[in-house]
């Protein structure tokens, strides 16, 4: 196992089971096999980048972990315990949260309502506790050092792309998750907004959260990830530390041109 993680990341001691361990995940859509036995480990406080060409199975893999589209076969372990993830509620209960590429925010609701959607605070039994939610929203955004949102009561539909991405990531932080999955978090953003989002990712890592980040942007990936895992045709074909000299090998593995330079391949 023991993938080489970069210095600076909180590396778990060897005997401890990783936060998330996937073994042999498979998923078919009719005759198309989107995932054919994918393996992946993520430690606490580690940023793992999942890269690969379109159709490599990245989205399928994270949908299996989040329960949006459960896998057909294979095992998922959290902290060494085998778990079953059949619906988004299951993964949420395990402390896994995801930020989707299309953000999955409700434009007609304000920031607070979006942050707490599906896990609203209540008082006196069944009444929404707006004040607690608003205070918690402020606290959360301050903790993530978000300075771009003027009012947590603005409708999300009125926000810019960067602000929406911020809301989406902040939302994934509610309920103190152990693992956060980010699907193309910087795809639609400008330079400064991208920098903000990557800053946010580093902040998640410093809080000891495991992060899986999916991206097409290798510059972003090498800037923020500890480890880079390449998927190709529904299986993991190799993994590298995010050292600049590995860039060529990663590109090769993504395109399938040359994977010999991989310094380690998961068993």
């Amino acid at each position, binding site marked *: 196992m023991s993938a080489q993680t970069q210095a600076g990341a909180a590396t778990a001691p060897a005997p401890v089971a990783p936060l998330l361990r996937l073994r042999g995940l498979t998923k078919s859509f009719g005759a198309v096999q989107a995932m054919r036995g994918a393996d992946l480990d993520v430690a606490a406080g580690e940023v793992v980048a999942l890269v690969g060409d379109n159709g490599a199975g990245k989205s399928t893999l994270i949908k299996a972990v989040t329960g949006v589209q459960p896998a057909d076969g294979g095992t998922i372990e959290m902290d060494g315990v085998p778990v079953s993830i059949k619906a988004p*509620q299951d993964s949420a209960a395990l402390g896994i949260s995801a930020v989707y590429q299309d953000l999955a925010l409700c434009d*007609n609701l304000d920031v607070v309502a979006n942050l707490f959607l599906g896990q609203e605070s209540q008082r006196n039994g069944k009444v929404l506790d707006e004040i607690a939610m608003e205070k918690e929203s402020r606290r959360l955004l301050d903790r993530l050092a978000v300075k771009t949102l003027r009012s947590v009561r603005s409708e999300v539909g009125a926000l810019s792309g960067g602000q929406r991405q911020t809301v989406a990531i902040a939302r994934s932080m509610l309920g103190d998750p152990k693992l956060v999955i980010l699907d193309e978090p910087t795809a639609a953003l400008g330079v400064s907004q991208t920098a903000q989002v990557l800053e946010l990712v580093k902040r998640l890592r410093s809080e000891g959260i495991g992060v899986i980040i999916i991206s097409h942007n290798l510059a972003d990936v090498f800037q923020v990830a500890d480890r880079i895992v390449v998927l190709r045709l529904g299986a993991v074909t190799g993994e590298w530390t995010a050292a600049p000299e590995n860039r060529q090998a990663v590109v090769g593995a993504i395109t399938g041109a040359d994977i010999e330079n991989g310094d380690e391949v998961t068993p």
Partner: protein
Amino acid sequence: MSTAPASPAPAFGPGDDTKEEHHRPSLADAGRKLLEGEMGSLRVIIVLAIIWTIFALANDRFLTAVNLSNLALQIAAVGTISVGVVLVLLLGEIDLSVGAVSGLAASVMAVLSVKNGWNPYLAIIAALGVGMAIGIFQGTMSTRLVIPSFVVTLAGLLMWQGAQLKVLGDTGTVNLSEPAITNIAGTFLAPWVGWLVAIAAIVGIVGSALLNLQRRRAAGLEAESMLGLIIRTGAATVAIIVAVVVLNSDRGVPLALTILVGIVVVMNFVLTKTRFGRHIYAVGGDAEAARRAGVRVAALRTTVFALASTFAALGGIIAASRLLAVNQSSGGSDLLLLSIAGPVVAGVSLFGGRGTVWAALLGALVIGSISNGMDLLALQSSVKFMVTGGVLLLAVSLDAVARQRRQARGRA
């Protein structure tokens, strides 16, 4: 109670195109919000004022206590049905069967009570149960088989109309004389009871507004300005007092109107203060986002359809109580269209996720006023239909324009 600082982070992020969100509301702002449909209730109140002015000028009997009492009775049934329609519209769905369900439920109640000699209260409960069962059936069909609600409820419209004819049997008309049933629409609150209800309502409105203000200030959050609060609660207080004075000067506050307002207040609470209500808005805004956030979308939709059909059944019972009879055309004619037109006129978006349940009451008032006013002017049905249709088209156009303006400003 100290006035706490407002938003803590006024700084802009680097290069972020943050929009001004937070300035003092101005008149121009209010005008823009009106156009963009954000103040739906205020907009419909203005429309109502215009309609009332026109009819008051055209016929001096329109604004009399007797006529306004009649208007209150006329809108009670359709307004109750509209409450359910609002819930369904908020989901971005539609229920075309509410008229037929109201007719069928009324028929079930009438036949059980009159022909089968059931206790009238049991008959009413059975009718409500039929409504709920239909809603659960239609909601399940629509969500589990993923059939558009438009189609499922259109099929329902036909089936329940047929069921109504079957239930009524050969006689076709059942006259109601059971006091427990006829009293629903036939009861007027004694003046002091009317005032008691009014005072309770005013205390509730002002009290909850002040309590909320105090809580937010205590928590150090931005709170509504005192002036805004006074204007808002003051307007509601004046409206309630005027309504009770006018209704008491005739026969008293109708029980049916009290029921309708009570339902609206309860459902408004559910929509704005509970998780269930929040999820209805979320599903109407983006069903996939809600699903991923853990909202059980299918169960929620089914529940809402069940509620809508139950309110439709209740509306049918109120209508039957007022007419003192159920016949083959109960729940038919333009009832369905008016019960949908009302909320839409009053600002509930057909695209889902926007609007309040007050639109059921206000919309019924607008549509009812037009109908009542034209009756007073002895206009023909031809004219009535065309005018009502025109008002609906105008309202939907406003909704569409509001949506486009929102999108133009980058908010879908």
